[in-house]
C-alpha cells in the first residue's frame, strides 16, 4: 500500500519535472544576456577581483555571504554532534579489545599523513588560480585525520587546539568582512589591491578568506569524524 502511494506520487513528480525541464530554456539563453549575473561575473570578474578561477571569486566575494552561512552550518553540525553525544557520566576512553593495525599500516599512515595535509594545503592556497579551494582542501585535510584515526589508534586528535583553530578561522572570516565594511563600502568587499594576475599573491582578500575557510572546514570535519569514532556505545 505504502509502496503504491509513493510510486504514484513519484511518477507525478517525475512527469512534472521532466515536462518542466523540457520547456525551460536552460543555459542557451544566457550567452547574449550580458546583464545576467553569471555573464557579468565572467566578463568583469577577472578584472575586478584578479582571481583566475571565476567560481572562486563568486564563492568568496560576490556570494560570500552564502559561504559564511555555509561555514556556519558545518559549525552547527560539529557543535550539534557534541551536544547530542554529550553524556552525563564521564566515560573512560573506549578500551575495546580491538587488534591494533599492523606495522606496515601504521608506518604507512605516519608517512602519508603529512603528505595528504600538504596536498590539502596546496589545494586551498591555490584556490583562486586552479580548481579547488577551501572546501576541497579542508575535506582533504579532514581525510588525513581520518586516516590517522584508522591507522594509528593511539594517536589522539588534540580537540582543544582543533576548537581554537576553528574558532579563530571563523573570527578571521567575519573580521575580514567587517574590515571590508570599514575600509570599503560593504561587508566582505575586496579592500586589498588585486596584485599580479595568475600569481599566487593575487586576488586581494580572496586567498586569505579561502585559507581561513580551509582551516575551518578541515577542523570542523575532523572534529565531526572524531566525535563519531570516539562515541562509546
Amino acid at each position: 500500500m505504502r509502496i503504491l502511494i509513493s510510486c504514484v506520487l513519484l511518477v507525478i513528480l517525475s512527469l512534472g519535472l521532466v515536462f518542466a525541464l523540457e520547456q525551460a530554456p536552460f543555459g542557451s539563453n544566457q550567452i547574449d544576456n550580458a546583464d545576467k549575473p553569471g555573464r557579468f561575473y565572467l566578463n568583469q570578474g577577472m578584472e575586478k577581483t584578479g582571481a583566475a578561477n571565476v567560481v572562486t571569486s563568486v564563492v568568496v566575494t560576490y556570494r560570500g555571504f552564502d559561504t559564511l552561512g555555509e561555514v556556519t552550518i558545518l559549525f552547527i553540525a560539529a557543535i550539534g554532534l557534541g551536544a547530542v553525544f554529550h553524556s552525563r557520566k564521564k566515560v573512560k576512553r573506549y578500551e575495546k579489545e580491538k587488534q591494533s593495525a599492523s606495522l606496515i599500516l601504521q608506518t604507512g599512515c605516519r608517512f602519508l599523513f603529512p603528505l595528504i595535509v600538504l596536498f590539502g594545503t596546496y589545494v586551498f592556497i591555490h584556490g583562486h588560480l586552479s580548481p579547488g579551494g577551501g572546501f576541497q582542501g579542508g575535506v582533504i585535510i579532514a581525510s588525513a585525520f581520518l586516516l590517522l584515526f584508522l591507522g594509528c589508534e593511539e594517536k589522539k586528535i588534540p580537540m582543544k587546539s582543533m576548537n581554537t583553530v576553528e574558532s579563530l578561522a571563523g573570527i578571521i572570516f567575519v573580521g575580514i568582512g567587517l574590515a571590508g565594511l570599514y575600509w570599503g563600502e560593504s561587508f566582505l568587499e575586496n579592500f586589498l589591491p588585486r596584485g599580479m594576475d595568475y600569481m599566487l599573491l593575487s586576488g586581494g582578500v580572496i586567498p586569505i578568506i579561502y585559507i581561513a575557510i580551509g582551516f575551518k572546514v578541515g577542523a570542523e570535519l575532523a572534529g565531526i569524524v572524531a566525535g563519531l569514532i570516539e562515541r562509546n556505545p
Partner: protein
Amino acid sequence: MVAVLLIIVPLGLAFAMPLFNFVSKRIAAYLPIAAMVCNLILSILLLPSVMENTRIVILGGLPPPLGIHLVAGPLGVGLSGLISLVGLAVSIYAWGYIKQGAQDKYHALYLLLLSGATGAVLTGDLFNLFVFYEILCISSYALVAYLGDRNGVESAVKYLIQGSVGSGLILVGIAILYGMFGTLNMAQIAIHIDNVDSPALFLALVLLVTGFGVEAAIFPLNAWLPDAHSSAPSSISAILSGIAIKVGIYAVARVLFTIFGVAVVFQYVLLLGLATLLIGEICAFSQDNIKRMLAYSSVGQVGLIVFAMCIATPDGVGAGLLQLVSHALSKAVLFLGVGYLVARSGSMSLSSLNGIGKRMPVVCFACVVAAFSLVGLPPFVGFAGKFLIVRAALAGKSIFFTVLIGIVFLATVVEGAYFFRMVQTLYFKDAKRQIEYKKVPASASIPIMALVVFIVALGVYPDVLLPYLKSAAADLLNKAGYIKEVLG
C-alpha cells in the same frame, strides 16, 4: 549599512564562543543575552528610518541584481525586532533553566538559530534565504535532541528527515527558477516572472511553497511539529513555536506574494490554512499531554495566520502579521511557564497539574493571560488580531468568506474549550498529592512577566503597532514597490 550587524553580531559571538570557553564556561550563557540586547536596540533604532524608505544593504561590493543584498524594509526589521525580543526573553530564561547537558553547546546553537532566523527575514536573495533557512533548521534539529532522551532523539530524527526533504525540494525550485531567468535576486525574478507563462513556473511555485511549508507546518506537512515541540526542552519549544514557524510563514509569504504574486493560488493556500486551523485545534482538544496540546495549538494558530494572509488585501495581511506577533508572544509565555510547571510536578499530563495555580501563582497567572490572549479575549493582544482578521475577511462582503469566518469561529470555540479546561485544571481542581514546590527563580519569572506586559500593553493600545503593520503589509503585497526599491 547597520543592518548587516543584526546578522554578524550573533554569528561572530557564536564563532568566538569556544575561545570564551577557555576563559570560563560561564560566559557562554551571557553571550546570547548580550547579542539579543544589541539586536533589539539596533532594530528599534533602525525601524523609524526604514519606515520611510527601504534600505538596501549591499554585500560583497556589487549592486543588487548582481550580488547578494539585504533588504532592510519595515517587515524585515520589524520581524528581526520581534525575534530579538522573544530571543532575549528566552535566553534569560535559559540561563536558569538549562542545567544539564553540554551547556556551552546549547547556547552556541541557540545563538546560531537566532542569527539564522534574522538572516532569513532580512535577505533579498533567494539562495541566501535558503542558506539562512537551513541554518535555522539544522540548529533546531540539534536543539530538539539536546537532552538526548528517547523522545527527543526520535522526534529530532523525524524532524530532520522531513525538513531535509523539504530543503531539497526548495533547491529544485531554485534550480528551475535560475534556469529560466538566470538570476537569484528576488526582485529580478519577480520582474521576469510576469512575462513568462509556463508549467515549469507552476512547478517551481509548488516546490518552493512545499519546501518552506515544512517549517511553517502547513497542513499536510506538519507531522513533525507536535513531536518536536513537545519533546524539546521548554525554552526550545518556546523559540520553535515563537520564532522558527514564523520564519517559515515569512518565507512562504515572500514566495507567494513578492516573487510569484499569482492571485489564483491564494485561495488554495487559504483553504489549506483553514484545514490546518481546524485539524490543529481539534487535535489539541483531544490531548492530555499539556506540551502536545500547546504544540497542536501552534498548528492551529499557524493555520489562522496563513488564512489571514491569503485574504491578500493590505488589511488581511496586516491582521495576519498582528496575529503572528500575538502568537509569538503568547506561545512563548505559555511554553516558558509550562516548562517550570512540568519540571515541578514531574509529569506532562494535564491531570498532574491539578491545583498547581495556588502554589505557583506568578507563572500560572502568566499562562492564563497568554491562554486568554490566544483565545482572543478582549484586553489582550490576541483579541485585536482576531478582530482585525474577521474585519478584513468580511470587508469584501462575499458569501464565501462569511462561511469561512464561521469555520474560524468554530475553531476558536474549540480553542477556548481546551484553554478553559487548562485554566480549570490549574486553579479549580484540588491537588491529589501534596508536593513541596520550590520557588520559580527570578531568571524565569522576569522574562515571562515582561512578555505578559507586552501582551497586555499591545492589547490595550494596538494602535501603536498599526502603522508598522500597514507598511509591513505593503512591503509584502506591493510587488512593484518592492522591485523599485531594490533595483532603483
